[in-house]
């Protein structure tokens, strides 16, 4: 088979042993790569009951068969492990140079177990890999770590994925940063990396990437690059995803003040339009990307002058309007802190907004916040709270470092407004005014995530009534999940999904790269298999129906708002929609895959139900 290198590395952090193993062709055909391989590896190799921070937890890094090829946008990689935030399957997909570089070095992935005695980093080159002492990198930001490793090894072209001090401090929000602006963001993968005493993964590869049919592939790519410059990707290129701010505001689904409201009176000040006009220095691309969506903000004046970071919708919204903050300089600074010190911006924003609501309700006093006046709209307090969370600094930092759900647990109150699902913080989509989105978020295997299904689409296309739910909504989530599982396993960037005319074209790309002969139907079936594999991991670790619900605010409080006034999710309707989704999936009423389905998909049916 082509595309794959056919080899991966097993790393034992405890002994320092690094060995090369063959990739099974059967596994490749069944699970494709990327997300599929993560689900397969974790299900088979993480022993039941393993604590996420224990040495036995498996941290894996996988590429897909298209990594390093000319397919747009193919330089992606995924890292996965049992999540310390949710206890379920954790993973994050990032772009940048690491994925292709690892392929060029000769490996499809890494499977890392154990814990080292002292801080190490993994250095991988053509045909060789070793653990190296990282004591001098302790406490360093992710950006400094990249520079320092390049200096140490006298090679400016080394790609580096690293954790910041937050990962070393084992915060549940800790992420992994590569190429400065790209993150394996959610579900605490940086925390797992820190628990193994692994500071960074550094890769330099110069080998060739073999594909099955290069001539046909490059001609298809020529066409795909052109499509990437057209209307299908316009929203990413010019304003970028921050274009969502004003439109969501107009629709009453811009989470404001910890998701209490759906409109923000100062939305213009922190809009994508304002950001482009006043703050964006340039829009850059990841390797192999013809779109370029990475908006780099440089703050030129004001109290946050000098801050530089890549700002997209989720980060902007959750650290901005969701915290009542409209100052783009403050938001850019907060994102810079998250990226360099190493925590997920989404979880950061929703945890700070939880704290703000708790403070305004009097659940937290100034003593609890170490003197910060943590009211909605206080941008200085928002930035400072973020910084302290990254470093577990003071009473406040320690309280917030592991996310909103745990903060509420520690405080002993406020869990009714911790905006989480499976203890992972919700994204910047208002729950009660985008209800199909909510179904997708809440049923997501990772927790509170739309990246698995794009379930907001019927809501924002006006195909359905976004203020209510019914039994048929599950089909949208089901279809979205199966296709997205393929996208996340090839791995290509979701922002390119609009350039493909049909599922046949996705399959054609897979076949031109690997030499497989997959039909579109087989491809979707593979997506279904991958999704069920991920779900099985969750079942192994105790997932039930109760884990697939949005936070209480969705059901218990009506929105009061200019646009979406009175919006609420009817619990009975949600139950119907959830059951409808399980039915579509052929899972039980408790959300467990049936034995019949698992056998059909060629999966281990032990945990299935009748």
């Amino acid at each position, binding site marked *: 088979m082509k595309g794959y290198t056919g080899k991966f590395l097993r790393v034992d952090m405890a002994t320092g042993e690094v060995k090369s193993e063959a990739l099974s062709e059967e596994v490749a055909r069944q699970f494709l790569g990327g997300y599929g391989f993560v689900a397969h590896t974790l299900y088979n190799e993480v022993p039941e009951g393993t604590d996420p921070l224990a040495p036995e937890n498996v941290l894996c890094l996988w590429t897909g068969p298209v990594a390093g090829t000319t397919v747009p946008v193919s330089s992606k990689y995924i890292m996965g492990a049992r999540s310390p935030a949710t206890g379920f399957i954790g993973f994050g997909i990032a772009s940048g140079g690491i994925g292709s570089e690892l392929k060029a070095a000769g490996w499809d992935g890494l499977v890392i177990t154990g814990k080292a005695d002292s801080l190490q980093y993994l250095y991988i080159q053509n045909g060789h890999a070793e653990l190296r002492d990282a004591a001098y990198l302790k406490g360093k930001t992710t950006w400094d770590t990249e520079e320092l490793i390049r200096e140490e090894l006298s090679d400016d072209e080394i790609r580096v994925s690293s954790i910041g001090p937050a990962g070393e401090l084992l915060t549940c929000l800790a992420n992994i940063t590569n190429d400065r602006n790209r993150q394996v963001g959610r579900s605490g993968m940086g925390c797992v990396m820190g628990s193994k005493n692994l500071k960074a993964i550094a890769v330099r590869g110069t080998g060739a990437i073999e594909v099955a049919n290069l001539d046909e592939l490059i001609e298809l790519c020529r066409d795909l690059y052109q499509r990437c410059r057209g209307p299908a990707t316009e929203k990413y290129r010019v304003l970028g995803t921050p274009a969502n701010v004003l439109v969501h505001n107009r629709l009453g689904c811009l989470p404001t003040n910890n998701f209490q409201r759906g409109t923000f009176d100062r939305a213009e000040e922190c809009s994508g339009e304002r950001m482009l006009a006043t703050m964006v220095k340039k829009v850059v691309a990841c390797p192999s990307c013809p779109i*370029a969506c990475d908006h780099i903000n440089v703050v030129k004046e004001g109290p946050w002058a000098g801050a530089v970071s890549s700002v997209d919708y989720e980060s902007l919204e959750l650290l901005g309007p969701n915290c009542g903050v409209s100052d783009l300089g403050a938001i850019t600074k907060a994102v810079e802190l998250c990226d360099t010190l190493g925590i997920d911006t989404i979880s950061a924003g929703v945890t700070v907004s939880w704290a703000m609501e708790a403070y305004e309700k009097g659940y937290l006093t100034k003593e609890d916040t170490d003197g910060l006046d943590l009211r909605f709209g206080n941008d200085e307090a928002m930035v400072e709270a973020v910084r302290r969370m990254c470093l577990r600094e003071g009473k406040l930092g320690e309280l917030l470092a592991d996310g909103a759900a745990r903060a509420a647990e520690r405080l002993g109150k406020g869990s009714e407004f911790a905006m989480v699902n499976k203890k992972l913080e919700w994204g910047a989509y208002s729950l009660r005014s985008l209800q199909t989105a909510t179904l997708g978020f809440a049923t997501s295997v990772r927790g509170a995530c739309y990246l698995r299904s794009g379930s907001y689409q019927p809501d924002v296309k006006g195909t359905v009534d976004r203020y209510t739910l019914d039994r048929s909504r599950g089909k949208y989530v089901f279809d979205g999940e199966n296709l997205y599982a393929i996208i996340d396993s090839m791995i290509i960037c979701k922002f390119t999904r609009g350039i493909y005319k049909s599922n046949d074209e996705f399959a054609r790309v897979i076949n031109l790269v690997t030499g497989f002969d997959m039909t579109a139907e087989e491809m979707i079936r593979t997506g279904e298999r991958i999704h069920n594999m991920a779900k099985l991991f969750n079942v192994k670790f105790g997932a039930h129906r109760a884990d697939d619900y949005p936070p209480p605010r969705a059901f218990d409080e009506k929105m009061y708002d200019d646009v979406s006034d009175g919006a609420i999710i009817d619990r009975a309707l949600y139950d119907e929609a959830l059951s409808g989704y399980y039915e579509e999936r052929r899972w039980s009423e408790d959300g467990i895959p049936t034995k019949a389905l698992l056998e059909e998909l060629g999966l281990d049916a032990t945990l299935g139900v009748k």
Partner: protein
Amino acid sequence: MEAKKIIVCDTEKCAGCELCEYVCSVFHEKTINWSKSRIRHVRIEPTFDIAIACRKCEEPVCIKACPRDAITISADGSMRIDKDRCNGCGWCIESCNFGALKLDWEKKVVFACDFCEGLDQPKCVEFCPYEALEFTTLDAVGHEAGKKAFKRVIEELE
């Protein structure tokens, strides 16, 4: 004598996608291997991007540097490396101000951009999704810059 053409990169349009490197290797090496690309992308954080290949210098330092006279200048101004003479010492790589030469560690000789000799335009220029690359003369570059500058003045006056 016809003015020589080089590959010029507009640093405002260049987004750092590196597809020029991928494409170059596909057409020269018949495989995907950006480390063997003749054109090189350089990023200076946070936002400066440029893709650079041989400049067809009027007085090439690489030719002077080569102790085995393995480099000659061809009719279109590009560098020709004699594979039999070149022993991969890399002295030319050190001498070039632009990093335009690279060592092929498999073939054990040095290589530089040949501007896709025989084709209408270099493949990198053809494929660049951002239209940041142009195959053009220095004279035309200068003329465009002057035109652009004055267009702006006129717009401001209006």
